[in-house]
């Protein structure tokens, strides 16, 4: 079993070797977590494992049994109230996305970064976000949005 966005989900033994990413997308049918490289190089598949940002493509189901997994679909539930998570709100205010494909991963990394370090400086943001590639090149806006979310939380 795993806890996926607050729901207990049974994992059959036959799926223990499956990657968490494949499980999330093809078995739980949550499509917000993206495949980008399959090798932990791009960050598109970032989820939270017990609150820490992790690459879902690099984890097997046997490694995450009994643990809490949060995907982009569950991010807003981490905050009080019905609204979006502060990073999601900041992403909209700064109009960050272009194609948008990498952004769920960027958001998950940013949310984990802020929960560890609520007041990051520019160097902290760069270092914390460095594993997430954005081909459209929205880096400047991502940094502004992370800083905004930190300010407004």
């Amino acid at each position, binding site marked *: 079993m795993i806890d996926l966005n607050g729901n207990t989900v049974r994992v059959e033994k036959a799926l223990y070797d499956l990657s968490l990413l494949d499980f999330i997308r093809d078995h739980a049918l949550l499509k917000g977590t993206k495949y980008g490289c399959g090798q932990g190089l791009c960050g598109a598949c970032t989820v939270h494992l017990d609150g820490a940002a992790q690459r879902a493509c690099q984890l097997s189901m046997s490694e995450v049994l009994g643990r809490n997994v949060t995907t982009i679909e569950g991010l807003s539930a981490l905050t009080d109230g019905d609204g979006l998570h502060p990073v999601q709100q900041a992403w909209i205010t700064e109009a960050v996305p272009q194609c948008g494909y990498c*952004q769920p991963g960027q958001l998950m990394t940013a949310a984990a970064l802020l929960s560890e370090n609520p007041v990051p400086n520019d160097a902290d943001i760069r270092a914390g976000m460095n594993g997430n590639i954005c081909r459209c090149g929205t880096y400047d806006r991502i940094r502004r949005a992370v800083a905004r979310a930190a300010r407004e939380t």
Partner: protein
Amino acid sequence: MENIVRNISIDRRKFLINSGWLAAGLTVLTSCKGVFAVLPTTANPEIEDGLSWVQLMPDGRIRFLCPRMEMGQGAPLGLSQIVAEELNLEQSQIECVSPASNQSPPFKMTVGSESIALFSEPVSRGAANLREHLRQQAARETALPIGQLKDATGGFDAVGRFIGYGELVPAEVTLLMPEQNDTVAQYFYTRAEARRIVGKSWRSPDLENIVTGKTIYSRDVSLPGMLYGDVIRPPRFDATLVDAKDIGAEAMPGVEAVVIDTSNSLLGVVAKSPLLLADALKRIEPVWRFGNSTASADELEVTRYRARDDFEHTLVDEGNSAANDVISVRSVSANYTTSYMAHAAMEPRAAVAWVTEENVKIWCGCQDPYFIRGRIAALLERDEEEVVVHPLRMGGGFGGRILSQPAEEAALLSARVGRPVGVQWDRETEFQHNYFQPKFSHAIDSGLDAKGKIAYWRHDFVSSPIIFGLVPRGLAPILDTFIADKGTARGARMPYQVGQQRVRYSDIRTEVPTGAWRGLGAAPNTFAIESMMDELAFAIGEDPLTFRLAHLAGAGGHMEPLATVLRRVGDVSGWGRSTPKNRGRGVACAIYKGQTHVAVVADVAIDHGERQVKVLRLWCVQNCGLVVNPDQVENQVLGNLMWGCGMALEEKLTISDGIANERNFDGYNILRHNEAPEAVIKLVKTARAKPLAVGEAAFAPAVAAIANAAFAASGKRPRALPFDYDSLYA
């Protein structure tokens, strides 16, 4: 102006029915232009085309069937604003949808930074015609003179009474066919300074779905009963499938079909789960034939062609350049090269196809749904009308999705099983089996006269076809003989006033598949031109910005817009101030597609301790005419500047043994957060009345400005891209 058409042909009516027009409503419609099958859709929109894209829905809202594909550039939002300007709409009153291929007549593929520049006019006209028709209708219903129906948000003010568009929806499906050369006022143009919506930074309605993970890309499409397919792809560019043997794939539980189709060079499996595919493919043994008659990529060296004085095309030959009596007091010659590059969009491509006896349905992200439709119809030997392509938002395009290879693979597999089949490329396939930006090899000889003006400029370069990179192999030899590829030459016509000028090039087709990539030849060609301009300035100790301005003066002032952005970027960047040791400023400018003027200044640092070249900051001033959505334009400029950093310092695809060596983001580097500089972006307010190209414009000068800044910081000239600390100090 009686322009209501009820007896429309079945051919025209079908687009309406397909887009939901079974009941009441009003739309405007135009002719369906024929497009040659299986070639990219290249016809420019005609002014009447806009009429088929705007519909009034029964609830009074407007549906805009956007004729541009969304890949992050935001064109549908900008065009929606133009519709809203004409029809006086709030953002909530317009719904922008991407039409399936049977819901709109074919429209030009989404390329070339022209979505707003080229489509604003027909979209504006279509919406304006609808507005004026509705005003007439309101006049009839109120028995008021038409002049008393004033514009109001979402309808008209009839002497104090509001009439919403919803009250004007006719009882039956109605089409407008405006008169030729009508004089309907297009507010987009006539309101000029009084525009209400154009010029505002509307936020995309897609943002919330993106940040909550709800946006559907090709890879996220899931249909009931869907199967999964994968294909063994050729181990080299020149491989053709001759035969194959199934050594146990079909016998695997969960495998639905093994498809060995030598006529289409396709070898694949279909299974119930995507997790079975890799194992199943291992149980098929392909037999390949290798070799074709095209040139090797190694031949793309300008020195080889210069030695034979053999260039296929002369782009410019002005001022008697053949004469040998040019007087110059200082000559400079240099060669510049750029690399093969990949699109490396974050979304590896994917598609779902569902082939039945009745029809063929395709879901994929693509820049040209009508090209995809034509190719799949030809592949399956079906009528084009039977094939429907449902285009989806792309996770990045950059010229790389003119084709949708997984759609073709899925179609062939689905044809065998009769059920929907999804094919998802992995990252390795995305790097190795698409087409690429060709490498470029340049040589420029130039000389200065005693006054420091360029006396002559002789630029030769060799690369591969880009616009015609995707033509079928059989057609290529004929085409290559007669056509100079304008994509390869994009940006090669430099803007400066010089005594004599000659620009020649050859577009050589090689083993390596090449095609559209952001800006086509603009970035490689601008890098060469703007590097040489820098070399010339330094050769005589002139300031590089001043040197450029001196060569933009005169000639009737037609280079004044470029001079203006150069001066502005000098102002905003504090150009001319001294820089610390190991820091340098570089400048470059360019005109994109003859319309958009851009200048960039880069601030580069050399870190000897870490052995790194770092771009600290970029300043960009751009004149792209009328700006429909400033925030979207600035985001596009930002992306272009980041691509400039990537091309200058990171991106290189290498070829050995007929295949790309790079397979993932560890071998092929793109820019990351810690390398991404701050960017200062200024859009010039302009008297120009039309929007101009944005999506690729700032990229080319950014590359060159970084190279020039690296020279200023190090005294070493980067002439081969990408460059790094080690290559600079080699």
